[in-house]
């Protein structure tokens, strides 16, 4: 069984490009060029230089001593929270802005949920001097105010998505509409491994730096390149895709995907796509998504804006269906508690998205010698209000 993408743009039965004709020239241009451009020396050089000098890579692989003691196993945290702008998202936006430049685009659009991708996009647009428009659900604008402020400081225009659940899914719809309306000069920087082919693959490749670094960092620390487990939260699935990438075909390394159960998987307010979803099409990709029997996409719910999405990327649909990855659902309450725990045990305030990954230890036991790498996808600064209010600190 193969877990990575095939040459038709599918992961197993998932993926593809289910797009209106209006998007065809854009997506096709990208599909035909992305591997070639990524393979160019000059691209690689500029990409790696920016990851190092601008983003601050490599991000450390930090042995979390007190957390490991508490759960009696060896926990390493991959510190994507230390990246410039505070999450893994920038790995991808750096890659895509270089791609957009080489495709001659002058106007950049993006969707955002937690605002991290919006900030990461606004950031690279400022860096390159390109116009930037970010679509963001009205509800997310309210709950991730610091990131909205950051995008404005960076010179981006933040446009509220007022339809549907007014969260990430709807922001994505709006971004796609913008792209349809601006097919020539505009590049759409999708923020996760979702959307039509080649986006899931392109984003996964830009994020693959995460698992590439884990390999040599673990070699340095433990004398081996493979952890026993790699754990990541899944909204669309980009941080997970990056953390899994170089381990995908190596089944010695167990993969754990953590989804947002919201108020409980069966509460009607959840975003646990693997449990609640069925095969279908969302944002141009055949994948698992939460929907009614009638095929209407359901409004998801999670306390975490970055996980509040009714689908997962096609890679993850395939990892789920094939059993390659174990999927665990974590409720709002469990995530919040785990976020506070990490803050007070290790002095690291995680993004609420990431807190979901940190909450698996009550559901899943590990052996004392297991090496468990958790992708610390982002920092919690954007979530302080939510934490403070939740814990009445």
């Amino acid at each position, binding site marked *: 069984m193969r877990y990575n993408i095939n040459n038709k743009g599918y992961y197993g039965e998932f993926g593809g490009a289910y797009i209106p004709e209006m998007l065809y020239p854009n997506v096709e241009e990208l599909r035909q060029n992305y591997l070639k451009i990524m393979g160019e020396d000059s691209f690689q050089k500029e990409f790696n230089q920016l990851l190092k000098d601008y983003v601050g890579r490599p991000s450390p692989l930090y042995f979390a001593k007190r957390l490991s003691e508490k759960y009696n196993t060896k926990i390493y945290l991959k510190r994507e929270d230390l990246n410039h702008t505070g999450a893994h998202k920038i790995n991808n936006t750096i890659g895509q802005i270089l791609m957009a430049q080489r495709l001659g685009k002058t106007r950049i659009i993006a969707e955002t949920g937690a605002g991290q991708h919006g900030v990461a996009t606004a950031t690279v647009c400022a860096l390159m001097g390109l116009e930037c428009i970010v679509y963001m659900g009205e509800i997310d604008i309210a709950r991730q105010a610091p990131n909205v402020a950051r995008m404005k400081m960076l010179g981006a225009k933040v446009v509220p998505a007022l339809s549907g659940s007014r969260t990430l899914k709807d922001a994505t719809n709006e971004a796609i509409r913008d792209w349809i309306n601006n*097919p020539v000069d505009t590049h759409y920087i999708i923020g996760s491994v979702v959307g039509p082919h080649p986006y899931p693959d392109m984003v996964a490749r830009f994020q693959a730096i995460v698992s590439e670094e884990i390999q040599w960092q673990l070699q340095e620390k433990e004398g081996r390149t493979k952890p026993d487990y790699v754990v990541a939260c899944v909204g669309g699935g980009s941080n997970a895709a990056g953390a899994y990438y170089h381990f995908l075909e190596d089944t010695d390394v167990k993969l754990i995907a953590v989804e947002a159960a919201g108020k409980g998987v069966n509460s009607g307010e959840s975003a646990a796509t693997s449990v609640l979803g069925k095969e279908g*099409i969302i944002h141009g990709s055949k994948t698992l998504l939460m929907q009614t029997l*009638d095929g*209407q996409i359901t409004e998801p719910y999670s306390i975490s804006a970055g996980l509040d999405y009714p689908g997962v990327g096609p890679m993850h649909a395939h990892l789920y269906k094939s059993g390659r990855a174990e999927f665990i659902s974590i409720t709002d309450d469990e995530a919040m508690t785990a976020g506070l725990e990490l803050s007070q045990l290790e002095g690291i305030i995680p993004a609420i998205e990431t807190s979901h990954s940190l909450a698996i230890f009550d559901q899943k036991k590990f052996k004392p010698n297991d090496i468990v790498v958790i992708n610390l996808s982002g920092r919690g600064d954007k979530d302080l209000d939510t934490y403070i209010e939740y814990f009445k600190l």
Partner: protein
Amino acid sequence: MNRINQKLNENKKLLSIYFTAGYPKIDDTVTIIQELEKSGVEMIEIGLPFSDPLADGPTIQASSTQALKNGMTTEVLFKQLKDIRKTVNIPLIIMGYFNPMLQYGVEAFCKKCKEVGIDGLIIPDLPVDVYHEDYKSIFEAHGLINVFLITPQTSVERIHFIDSISKGFIYMVSSASVTGSSSGFGNEQTDYFKRIAEMKLNNPQIVGFGITDHKTFTQATQFAKGAIIGSAFIKHLTDKGLETIDNFVKHVKN
């Protein structure tokens, strides 16, 4: 012969109207179809509402959301259309996104379309290539014409490919944009309409997006076989209700 092909053979410019099934009221579907035919419309696109209509602008989006709230589903729509062919003769096309059809089962969906007398489908997010590989035979087995879109950005090569697998007409998007966005046509569009006309494709073209009134209808059909009105008609329904449909159509036609 499929009703769409018959209509296309008629020696006149065709006015086709899009509306969202279940809007403004859940039970308005049949009335609207009948009124449209009575008013002289040549073809109708019945919109199957979708929660996330990403090729549509705010007007059609809002009507879809309302229709879903009203209780519209694939099942309900087919029930409403059960006897439509007892009263209506013009071609009827269902326009909808692919996911609801996928959930219904593509084959089951096609079968139902045939049963109630639907002539064709427009599925904006089912790309030509996927259709061609996976669904063509099913559609054709049920006598359904699948309509493809082209835009000003579509390459000549691709237009020829689309033409080659089309069996009715080509939906020519007036400008690259979601529905309901432009207002009036300029030189750019006219050039584009002309350019396509001069390609002398096998399938006639019907222009969609941006047709709002008599003027734009005339412009669009100068080089094309017909034109489709969507958002403008939905707006009319929202503002004026069902009583004055014939008025709307008359104003467009003349």
